[in-house]
């Protein structure tokens, strides 16, 4: 394969990775629940949407995020529109952080992510409980928020490494 062809494939892969991961995550409910670890659960789409909206928003179209949210609602059984609402709000918070940040720092992103997840989860579950009269375990939500926040730093580093690797391969080729 020509050098130019290889570079183009790597660039395309880099571009498509976040959206492919998001759709795999919502269709597959990637959450390790089958391990039956007591209380363990986290929201991978929240981490993914926040990170990529913050770092490379052009790789994650809002329309596609909206549709991924609709799919997530159908798979999980939530009222239709609730996940799209949450994901788009996360995009908004990430865009706001990007607008006000002069010198990016992963620690600041991490803390802002905690604030975002808390606000979005509160909105999300207030709507589900007050508007749709569904029962939800509050302890589960708190633990889910904690693990989502805790795992953000790990996934953010993994995404960073992945981006460096694909960019370097494209440049070397």
């Amino acid at each position: 394969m020509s050098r130019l062809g290889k570079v183009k494939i790597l660039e395309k892969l880099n571009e498509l990775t976040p959206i492919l991961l998001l759709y795999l995550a919502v269709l597959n409910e990637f959450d390790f629940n089958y391990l039956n670890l007591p209380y363990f659960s986290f929201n991978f789409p929240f981490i993914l949407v926040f990170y990529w909206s913050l770092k490379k928003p052009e790789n994650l179209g809002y329309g596609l995020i909206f549709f991924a949210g609709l799919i997530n609602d159908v798979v999980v059984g939530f009222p239709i529109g609730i996940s799209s609402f949450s994901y788009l709000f996360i995009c908004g918070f990430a865009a706001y952080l990007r607008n006000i940040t002069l010198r990016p720092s992963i620690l600041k992103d991490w803390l802002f992510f905690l604030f975002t997840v808390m606000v979005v989860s509160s909105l999300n579950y207030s709507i589900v409980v007050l508007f749709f009269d569904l029962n939800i375990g509050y302890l589960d939500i708190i633990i889910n928020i904690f693990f989502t926040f805790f795992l953000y730093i790990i996934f953010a580093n993994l995404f960073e490494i992945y981006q460096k690797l694909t960019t370097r391969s494209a440049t070397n080729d």
Partner: protein
Amino acid sequence: MEASRDDFVIAIRSAFIQRGNKQRFSLFFLIITSILLLVLGKFNFSAVKFLKVSINEIVYRSSFIVSVPENYIKNSYINIKDHFSYYEEYLELKKQNKKFKSDIQKNDFIILENQRLKKIIDDYLVVSSEIVAKVLIDKQSPFLRSIIINKGSKDNIKLGMAVLDDEYLVGKVIEVNYTTSRVLLLSDLNSKIPVSIEPEGYQSILSGSGKDDGEIQYSKEETKLNVGDIVYTSGSGALFKSGIPIGKIKNNTNVNFFSDFTQLKFVKVLNYEKESN
């Protein structure tokens, strides 16, 4: 002070209202669309229902395919775990088998007597339709516990039908699409089933705990539950027929289900009606 408020407003406006680089829609437009879908969904607007059913049909099948690698890992993990406990389980089952053999003979007589008595009071229900369905998706989210089965309105599945794993109740149908349906498991927080607790015959409501077990609710204060008491459907409210086994009292008001909801592969979807003479 004024300047910092202006900066905040500009940053918010730029984040939510302006269309970003390479973005086809603005966030504000899509958030409003989501809210609109939520509101219309709440009032069962037919267009939203149609949208949901269409997405359901496509997504359930795609999700089943996408889940194949994860399911393979999950099943391998369960197989390995089971392998280590085979011998202990074998000894336990051998002991149980001996006891069950003697129980069956006693039960045969009781069952026949019970059928005769129920016919006298016109409360004898028979299975009018039994549909075996395959579990397509069994994602046990910490918030909602449900499964998707591969039978829908095309196969005469109706809302409220009982879903059994062998002889044990696992839930009821809460959403019917053309080729698929959603079953709300008994462990879900939103599941409420009228039950009878034997041998005392206490009547109560079994609610899911959101975990792997259930909880007895709304029983009288003097109700004394013992570990090992069996929970059956009571048949009240004409939801299900009475006497379908559900689980055992674990401690206080907690119920351990007979069926393991994480291991469901095939289930029976049943409809009951009075026996015609």
